[in-house]
């Protein structure tokens, strides 16, 4: 066997090994999972995936994960937005129907939900949920954060917002 053939076989074997690894399925664990064009919070958002959506993770590059979207495009999500746990399924979604067929039950009411808060609020009118609602509207975008840091001459160690 000549050296060229050995090398070719080796390359083929290595290629097979990497391409054979199936993408891992992870669930979005934030209310609105943002898929970005590259592995940075400053990269543009190319798609949003709702809580519980299953994502095909093709590559891990901590703290980022490359995901493949249903339309074939790829993008990047921060790992903290994903979990290996299977989260609740949305009522009426295709996932629910599929889950029911597979004999799985959607564990929607598990623990604490909006309905539980509503009941709790009615029972405890002194609690200041109004301020909590207001505070939730105070989002700072990654671009605003970067501009704020720059204006204060706060220079991130990596030279960029992660």
């Amino acid at each position, binding site marked *: 066997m000549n050296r060229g053939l050995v090398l070719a076989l080796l390359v083929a074997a290595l290629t097979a090994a990497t391409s054979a690894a199936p993408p891992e399925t992870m669930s979005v664990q934030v209310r609105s999972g943002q898929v970005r064009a590259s592995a940075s919070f400053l990269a543009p958002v190319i798609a949003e995936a709702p*809580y519980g959506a299953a994502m095909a993770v093709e590559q891990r590059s901590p703290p980022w994960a490359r995901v493949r979207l249903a339309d074939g495009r790829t993008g990047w999500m921060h790992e903290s937005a994903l979990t290996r746990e299977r989260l609740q399924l949305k009522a009426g979604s295709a996932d629910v129907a599929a889950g029911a067929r597979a004999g799985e039950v959607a564990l929607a009411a598990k623990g604490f939900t909006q309905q539980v808060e509503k009941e709790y609020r009615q029972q405890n009118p002194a609690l200041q949920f109004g301020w909590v609602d207001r505070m939730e509207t105070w989002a700072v975008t990654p671009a605003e954060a970067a501009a704020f840091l720059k204006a204060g001459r706060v220079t991130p160690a990596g030279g960029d917002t992660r």
Partner: protein
Amino acid sequence: MNSRSFVRHLAFLLRPPVAAVAPLLAGCQTVKVVSEGVAAVGVATGQITEEQAQSIVRTGESLGSAMEQLTPENEYWIGRAVTATILARHPAYDRSDLNRYVNLVGQSLALYSDRPETFGGYRFLVLDSDDINAFAGPGGLITVTRGMLRLCRTEDELAAVLAHEIGHVAHRHGLKAIKKSRWTGAFTTIVVEAGKQLGGADLAEAVRAFEGAIGDVTQTLVNSGYGRAAEREADAAAVRMLRRAGYDPHALIAMLEEMDRRLKPGGLDFAKTHPDPTDRIREVRSLIGGLASVPPPAERQARFAAVMRGV
């Protein structure tokens, strides 16, 4: 509760080995008990065998120790209620320029934490209180008192306080305070398809469990503290975050020294819930290592001084 609903509840309690255990119990028509003590009561009344009881106890225990059973969405609803409870004790400080500034510092820092994304995101609010304190609501709703802000002499010191609280959120320290006994109520609430509403008795049980969990977390935040190990973790997270973002991690030491001077042992605020600052200072110093302290540039100090006027 009839036997059917017991099996339904129990199947939920026993997840994931549902398939193995549920059929075993489905044939048991007379079991009428649920929640804590279920196995003991079942055996005592001859309704289940010792072997079946052991199986229930084992799975129940593994569930009880698993904080992970709470979903990120559950964490979000708990954090909202905990923060609404804190706001009933300490009113919000309604100054939009200050709250915006604190959110810019805090949310910028959160991008550099080990957990930049949570279900609802990180949000910050100043409390109109002279106490020296800050609270990390699960999921990222962080509140900080005017008294604490007055202690900060630079933006870097404010960043150090907020980074420490973000560290508590990232490590889910608040959720760890929830007593194991709450799980029974929380997790026996039923199995329904997503989007469907809970019925009367099930809803009441879920609300009771919710109330208990909120009480556990609030009690820990306000009275008992997370404990030394959790404070150490939050300090370490803060040092990493400050360094990555570009703030001076020595600001955390400066804040701890200031608190050591201001707080009286046996005081009612931060002193009550946090270990001796001198121990923490020593540990933070060793985490920072030889990195030199850098004074904040003029632009940063100017915007800090401007927004803090009147606080």
